[in-house]
């Protein structure tokens, strides 16, 4: 009962197959899959490592950490000039806001953050009340706190606002104003009423056809000449208005893209159910359209945030503007002062834009899950 094809002994043990899990396997599959891949990994790794070392070398190893004026930083071979940042940083945040009143922007920011945080968390309760507070009460509170002039708060003119405070004020107001305006314009553009449609199209095309710098320049230089003498509109308000209108035109197009992506059947179904046009739009079409346009809307928000630096051309000191002004201080003039200032500016802008972008991703993911249900 023996068959030659039946093995008498166990086959020799072979090594286990390469694992498909764990960090080592990941490395092998993604970075060292073949000779080409390995070479690319090593090359890019070296490049990145070199870059990282350069940054580290400049920001930490060769950097100057303490000093009272330029003599500390004006040393051959010195890296970043941090004492310049230590001295100027409060001004970069608050601009020319009076020293004794700086708690006001801080308080404004804290109230805003406290009210915004629960809005951003899907699980937090009382959204409706919170939204009402943020959109109606908060702007008033912020305006009173920052501007002063009532309740015994010394008035602080907007010309003294500056730095990160102005960047945030401009960006937040621009974002808050441009979204509803953009939605209205997008709906107007789809309207069946010729006047509304025509006006919306004219508005959108006009603002999209002009560069932002031109808008700001017009608002700041030409507008005062057309106003009666002695009447002067606040420069910051002019810039915010210009920026918001500009952003709303782009917002309208982003929302329109979403509106057009919602199938016609949705609207028809809504109407067939006996909902009015407004109800259909508000409860059926818009929620779907906005969900589709979130990536674009956030893109515009981020763009708007970065565009705030353009208010520099009309003489408003935003974050970048105030850093630029500080670079002219002969007390700190040194080879690396400017680079240090711009490095910090880049970090701050990146932090804000990255946070916005990550939050948008989170929202998208959440809404996509809702959509699948």
């Amino acid at each position: 009962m023996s068959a030659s094809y039946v093995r008498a002994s166990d086959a020799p043990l072979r090594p286990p197959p390469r694992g498909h899990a764990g960090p080592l396997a990941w490395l092998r599959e993604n970075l060292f899959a073949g000779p080409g891949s390995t070479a690319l990994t090593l090359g890019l790794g070296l490049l990145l490592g070199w870059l990282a070392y350069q940054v580290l070398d400049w920001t930490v190893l060769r950097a100057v950490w303490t000093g009272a004026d330029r003599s500390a930083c004006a040393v051959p071979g010195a890296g970043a000039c941090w004492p310049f940042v230590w001295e100027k940083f409060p001004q970069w945040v608050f601009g020319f806001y009076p020293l004794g009143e700086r708690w006001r922007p801080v308080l404004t920011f804290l109230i805003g953050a406290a009210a915004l945080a629960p809005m951003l968390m899907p699980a937090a309760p009382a959204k409706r009340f919170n939204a009402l507070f943020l959109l109606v009460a908060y702007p008033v509170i912020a305006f009173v706190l920052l501007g002063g002039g009532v309740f015994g708060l010394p008035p602080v003119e907007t010309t003294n606002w500056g730095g990160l405070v102005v960047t945030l004020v401009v960006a937040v107001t621009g974002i808050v104003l441009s979204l509803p305006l953009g939605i209205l314009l997008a709906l107007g553009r789809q309207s069946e009423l010729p006047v509304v449609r025509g006006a919306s199209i004219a508005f959108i095309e006009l603002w999209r056809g002009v560069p932002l710098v031109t808008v700001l320049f017009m608002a700041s230089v030409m507008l005062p000449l057309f106003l009666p003498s002695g009447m002067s509109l606040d420069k910051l308000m002019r810039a915010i208005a210009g920026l918001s209108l500009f952003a709303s035109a782009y917002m309208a197009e982003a929302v329109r893209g979403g509106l057009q992506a919602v199938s016609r059947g949705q609207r028809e179904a809504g109407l067939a159910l006996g909902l009015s046009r407004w109800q259909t739009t508000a409860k059926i079409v818009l929620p779907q359209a906005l969900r589709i346009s979130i990536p674009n809307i956030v893109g515009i928000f981020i763009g708007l945030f970065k565009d705030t630096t353009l208010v520099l051309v009309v003489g408003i000191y935003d974050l970048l503007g105030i850093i630029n002004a500080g670079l002219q201080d002969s007390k700190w003039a040194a080879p690396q002062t400017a680079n240090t200032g711009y490095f910090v500016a880049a970090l701050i802008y990146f932090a804000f834009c990255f946070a916005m972008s990550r939050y948008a991703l989170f929202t998208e993911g959440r809404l996509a899950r809702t959509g699948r249900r």
Partner: protein
Amino acid sequence: MKNKLITLMLGAAATVAIAGAASAGTLDDVRQHGFVQCGVSQGLMGFSVPDAQNNWTGMDVDFCRAVAAAVLGDATKVKFTPLTAKERFTALQSGEIDLLSRNTTWTMSRDTSLGLKFAGIMYYDGQGFIVNKAKHPNVKSVNDLAGATICTQSGTTTELNIADYFKSHKMDYKLLTFEKNDEAIAAYQDGRCDSYSTDQSGLYAQRLKMATPDDNVVLPEIISKEPLGPVVRQGDDAWFNIVKWVYFALVNSEELGITSKNADDMKKTSTNPEVQRLLGVTSADGTAAGFGIGMGVDEGWALAAIKQVGNYGEIFDRNVGKDSPLKIERGKNALWKDGGLQYAPPVR
């Protein structure tokens, strides 16, 4: 072409603006507000810079303070409005500011067609050259730059000025132009050119940002005229006179040896009639000198300005001169008796 258009537009707008703005006197407005609204630059080393405590410093800034001291008796009663180069004239024409002290070059077109008046020349600037003395130890003047390569920013008058100057002095040169100023300076520091050229005050500012400031010297010659001075609206002669004479008072006081420290003593003790007239000393018979009253301000106008801000020399030294990191030579900005161009008519 673009510049011409802007000039034309501003000119036309100015005519409209003046019609409205000239109705009330600027002096009355200033008194009513309680401060002088002064337009300065957004940041220019040595001329107007905000420090970390939000205080503005610089030559242009100090002139504003001197005007405030003369008119209101208090040098701190100034509201500084930082302006871009484009908005500066509009801001003045529309009445947003009372005085523009923003390193503005006095040119004929600005003086005659924009509805502006230049009240004096606070700083005689002009195009200069900087060379690395470690690399070029023999270059002591622009005339030693024959055959040199010169870095500068493209599209500005600096190119033209260099061409004119070197042509008229029959010297060869090579021009290396850059879109941005920073690039031109980087090229100069990398040794791609022998010299870098821009306005002299700018050269001193750039020098401070170089790796080895002391190796770089600014050559003494100035090859173009960039007279910088305060500007007021046309059509308000009373205010124009005040601004003009505050500047003259600063120059005169340096000439007479009145400083911020000794101004009070000089007023009490000086027997020099020039000093007495400038400082508004009441003569023995009780009659006032009347120079301040004649302008519509207090008799102590010049005393206040000098005491609180300093004379021209003090302002210069503190902000751009020997007491500042910039260390600009007085050069053309020395008093006329020291061979410079700063000259003021007498107070009589």
